[in-house]
């Protein structure tokens, strides 16, 4: 995979460059899915003109909670019924203690579901060599295009320079 990208020092010029690239993509010069944005801080998606991100994470967390609660219920009732040992005059499956265990496992299910969904949907961990520049950690914002049309490369570099990129680089992990 090849890429051409520019490093911008502030979000405004980066946003400008992104606008230009999106205009170019609407004219068919570059693939809109190939536009890459990387930053060291979360940027406001709407202002960058990027499509609003959606994730089913809250629903999956709720689902995880439901599963956890069911496991809690099953654990408490099934195990206590298989080997019924009466204690203190309480019923074998005492509702309140079972409820407490269910509650804790519900929360655990929600937490683990959130963690798992995060890792899967953010596609982490991923140790393959991907488009990245260590200067991003200095606060630069990377705006680039992956696999650009070879005829359009020079124009692309010119546009990035024009919008105020501090540096314009090429990347290849081939």
């Amino acid at each position, binding site marked *: 995979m090849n890429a051409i990208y520019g490093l911008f020092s502030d979000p405004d010029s980066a946003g400008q460059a992104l606008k230009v690239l999106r205009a170019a993509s609407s004219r068919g010069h570059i693939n809109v899915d190939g536009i890459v944005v990387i930053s060291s801080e979360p940027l406001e998606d709407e202002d960058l003109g990027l499509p609003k991100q959606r994730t089913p994470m809250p629903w999956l967390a709720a689902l995880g909670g439901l599963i956890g609660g069911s496991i809690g219920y099953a654990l408490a009732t099934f195990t206590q019924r298989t080997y019924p*040992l*009466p*204690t*203190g*005059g*309480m019923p074998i499956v*005492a509702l309140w203690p079972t409820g407490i265990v269910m509650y804790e496992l519900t929360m655990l299910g929600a937490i683990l579901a959130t963690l798992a969904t995060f890792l899967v949907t953010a596609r982490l961990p991923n140790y393959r060599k991907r488009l990245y520049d260590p200067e991003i950690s200095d606060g630069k914002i990377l705006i680039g295009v992956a696999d650009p049309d070879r005829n359009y490369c020079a124009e692309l570099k010119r546009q990035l320079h024009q919008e105020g990129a501090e540096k314009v680089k090429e990347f290849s992990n081939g």
Partner: protein
Amino acid sequence: MARRWGMVIDLDRCTGCEACVAACHAENNIATVGDAEAARGRAIHWIRVERYWEGEYPNVRVMFRPIPCQQCDAAPCEPVCPTYASYHNADGLNAQVYNRCIGTRYCANACPYTVRYFNWFNPVWDKPLNLQLNPDVSVREAAVMEKCTFCIQRIKAAEIKSEMEKREIKDGEFSPACVQSCPAGAMVFGDLDNPDSIVSRLSLSVRGTQLLSEVGTYPKVTYLERESSRGDE
């Protein structure tokens, strides 16, 4: 057939001789912990005799109350054990399973009568006392909770014998070591669910009280208060 083993202790007859304590030690392989440990309050007596003084000199009276495990029907020590080492068995006894005990000591805190005793160290019998251990009773190791079992080994032995002989257990056929050894005959043991047994008739006595009944433990040991104290103001 499920039974409800219970006990009645007549405080009018108890002389405080503590023969019950000694017999319990002998029957149940209870070790003596030594001077230092006893001074720290760690002596183990599955049944203990509490002594209370009443009145001022010269009208002083002493009252003795033997307190074994009360084998509560709603025992607070049972639900709190995380490993079921303390549970209610089919005969209504509060059973202590030594192998399950991991030593959280929650049951001992929960018992309002403080009748549970913990093995802080491995018990030691100086020679030749180790030769007099009762083979019917296990020896507990360090970090395990123990308490009065109403001599469950004798209960089981009587049950086995009666099953082999295909008959019911007769009332008074056997008794725990403490009941057996009491010279004043202050203690009675039997099946509370059997309406003809002595213990169930005595437990309904007018003199009958239960220790700490307000805590809601439903103990199965009934104390017969002294006749003389009932007449006083």
